[in-house]
């Protein structure tokens, strides 16, 4: 009687365990591959307030007697406004094997038929009427502003003016309807260079498997092809990576300001490296913080390296049958189960507030509250962040500006790493940051 009962209980307990571990185990919601800010496609009319295509005048050069401004505007009137229908904006494409850039990468501007010309607003032509001088019979009160009272009497002028004067010293500016043809550019291609990783985000084990490019191996400006900053070509970049000596020689030829700035950069690198080493004695794999999609598999290593899951430890403690090999893990799990304290949350809040540069002057007439979902690395830097979907994102320019400023605050490396306890990583490995500018806007 007693034995079957115990077996039955154990069997039921096992079923409950399986159900708990298999069904109710907390899972983090996967981060959709969403790009938060989308490209705004504006029409030419919206951009230039262009009422109509210009009159079909020959594109002949303007008479040399015309002043530069009038000439420019007259020329502008000869242009047609062309709106190239564009597909919805796409996020930046990153091709694994990018093609070297070619001038033909930009699609030729397709000229769409000009939009119909809206009726031009007729300029008022009030006809002059013989002026009947009616002297003001009322003494108007003095006012601090010219318009506040009747206009002051005319001061003596050098020469008496005719009643109606059209002559003027300089020809007036002519209306320029459309400044130019406007086209949306095609999406840029992945640069044919490997994206460098921040120096403080390297992991020795990962380095052995897939060596990350050293900072010295990063592409450097080539001898000035453009006047100020050199442009890099893909093949040259590869050769530079293989030949660091050549790169050093190139660096020696840099002008003095660049050398100064390099020293600043190096100092920043060193500071960041030291800070990281002090705060995170055992850094995890860190891909670059990006709003797009971080390397999730790498981040999951943190979970694998961590002790047994909190659920398992909790259950083991509850039933008092923790495995003998896991006392340390159970102790660690007891710490992990602690919630992030309010002081720790406040510390992170203060960090982010320092980097949230809200565009001033936003209209506060709507709900501008923005939620950003952040996946964190174990070292306190964001691995991926995205604006949670909102219908206002594409409907309100103010909302989108707010959302993008919030995203920049989250991704700003100057505010990383967040001051959160490493032992509570499971509590903040995914967080939701809610940005509400209502208080700042005073609405």
């Amino acid at each position, binding site marked *: 009687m007693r034995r079957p009962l115990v077996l039955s209980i154990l069997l039921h307990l096992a079923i409950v365990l399986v159900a708990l571990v298999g069904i109710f185990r907390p899972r983090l919601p996967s981060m959709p591959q969403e790009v938060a800010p989308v490209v705004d496609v504006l029409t030419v009319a919206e951009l230039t307030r262009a009422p109509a295509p210009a009159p079909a005048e020959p594109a002949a050069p303007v008479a040399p007697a015309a002043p530069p401004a009038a000439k420019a505007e007259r020329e502008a009137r000869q242009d047609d406004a062309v709106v190239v229908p564009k597909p919805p904006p796409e996020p930046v494409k990153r091709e694994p094997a990018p093609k070297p850039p070619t001038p033909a990468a930009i699609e030729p501007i397709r000229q769409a038929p000009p939009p119909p010309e809206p009726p031009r607003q007729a300029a008022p032509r009030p006809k002059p009427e013989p002026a009947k001088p009616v002297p003001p019979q009322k003494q108007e009160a003095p006012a601090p502003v010219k318009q506040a009272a009747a206009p002051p009497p005319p001061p003596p002028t050098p020469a008496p003016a005719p009643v109606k004067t059209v002559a003027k010293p300089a020809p007036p500016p002519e209306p320029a309807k459309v400044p*130019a043809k406007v086209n949306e550019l095609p999406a840029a291609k992945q*640069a044919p260079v490997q994206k460098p990783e921040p120096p403080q985000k390297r992991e020795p084990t990962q380095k052995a498997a897939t060596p990350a490019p050293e900072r010295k191996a990063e592409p450097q400006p080539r001898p000035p092809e453009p006047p100020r900053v050199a442009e890099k070509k893909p093949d040259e970049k590869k050769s530079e990576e293989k030949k660091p000596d050549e790169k050093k020689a190139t660096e020696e030829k840099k002008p003095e300001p660049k050398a100064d700035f390099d020293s600043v950069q190096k100092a920043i690198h060193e500071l960041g490296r030291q800070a990281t080493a002090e705060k995170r004695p055992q850094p995890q794999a860190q891909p670059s913080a990006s709003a797009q999609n971080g390397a999730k598999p790498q981040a999951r290593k943190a979970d694998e390296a961590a002790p047994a899951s909190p659920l398992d430890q909790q259950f083991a403690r509850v039933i008092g049958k923790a495995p003998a090999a896991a006392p340390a893990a159970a102790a660690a799990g007891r710490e992990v189960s602690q919630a992030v304290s309010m002081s720790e949350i406040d510390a992170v809040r203060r960090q982010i507030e320092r980097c949230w540069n809200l565009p001033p002057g936003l209209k506060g007439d709507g709900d501008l509250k923005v939620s950003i979902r952040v996946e964190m690395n174990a070292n306190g830097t964001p691995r991926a962040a995205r604006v949670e979907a909102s219908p206002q994102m594409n409907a309100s320019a103010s909302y989108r500006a707010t959302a993008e400023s919030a995203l920049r605050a989250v991704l700003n490396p100057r505010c990383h790493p967040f001051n959160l306890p490493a032992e509570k990583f499971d509590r903040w490995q995914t967080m939701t940051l809610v940005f509400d500018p209502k208080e700042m806007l005073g609405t």
Partner: protein
Amino acid sequence: MRDAVWRRLQAMIGAVALALVVVAGLPAAADLRIDITRGVVEPLPIVILPFPSAGGDQASDVGTEITNVIAADLERSGLFKPLDPRPLSVSQPSLDTLPMFANWRLVNTQALVHGRTTALPDGRLKIEFRLWDVFAEQEMLGRAYSTPAGNWRRIAHVIADAIYKRITGEDGYFDTRIAYIAESGPRSRRTKRLAIMDQDGANHQFLTEGNNLVLTPRFSPSSQDIAYLRYADSQPRVHIRNLTTRADEALAGIAEITFAPRYAPDGERLIVSMAVDGNTDIYTYDLSDHTRRRLTTTSGIDTSASYSPDGRQIAFNSDRGGSLQLYVMDADGSSVRRISRGDGRYATPVWSPRGDLIAFTKTQGGQFHIGVMRPDGSGERLLAQGFRVEGPAWAPNGRVILFFRQEPALNDAQGGRSRLFTVDLTGQNERELVTPLDASDPAWSPLRP
């Protein structure tokens, strides 16, 4: 025996239930939420790389000039901090490839603009640019313009407007013009001319010769007409000058003194102050049929009327209550209510293009102030002050106010300089708008068509 088993069973069931409670609480606890309600207001660091030429030296020079104009526009707004790209040892990306975002992040660049100019075979100029969000590694904007080569400056303003709008969410105001009164000569024989220029002071031109005193220019919504006050035959009359045809005519059908003109939002009417039988009231003037309609009927002086953007309300100043104060009425003249409640005298209300604020001039304690308040009179804020600051005019996006500031005059020939200034709604970003001569009574055009 049975009781012992039952007690054990109860203990185990209790343990399982407790485990369930603990497990059920875990998922909620894992989702940390932090509310951020404060931030900073600082200029956004942005790098605008020189637009290299893809078709000749001339285009290269123009490309540098274009970037200079864009950077100056954005910097003057106070919302951007253009970084000089020359000391940055970061390679300039090609327009067709992604920039090296990590490098730009190291120098705290949050936005990056790069572009290209190409001299086309037909003599025109092709200008392309892209705007990048460096932290999000996203392209925010990418456009190409084909324009006559002499039009590059305006294209630079158009690009600056596009960048401004994309990042701030507000319309820009760089492709606009400013009309004002240019003053010269001693104070006893001041010559005043109507002048016009781009919002950055470029392309300056005089529209009148200075034979007549002119005051208070106001742009039409189409920005092709200017209504202004002009003394002709010693009588102040409102004139309208067309910038296209150069026609300059007084309002037809009105023989009385008219002044303080301003266009209705639809551009089909003017609202003016008119002195009839010694009483100054506010009238509307239909530009098509030349009819007028009286809106105020009190014995006080009602002037400086300004329409709300939707055309349904009118702000004006009046001394009907004993001192100069601001009032708002419906467009038909009904429902007049006073909105200024502070000490001092209020004048020249100008309704913001956004509709959310009214700018005004205030005198108190011997000082002049430029301020703003909500249409109901609440939220009064003073943005600028001085010996004499007057004539507020809104930028078309309602974020910046243009006004003039006059210094005290030492004598007839010395001192008393009058200059134009802009100030944003924070009151922190005040900039002088340099003009060739003394300047007063500014007016800001809408965005150019």
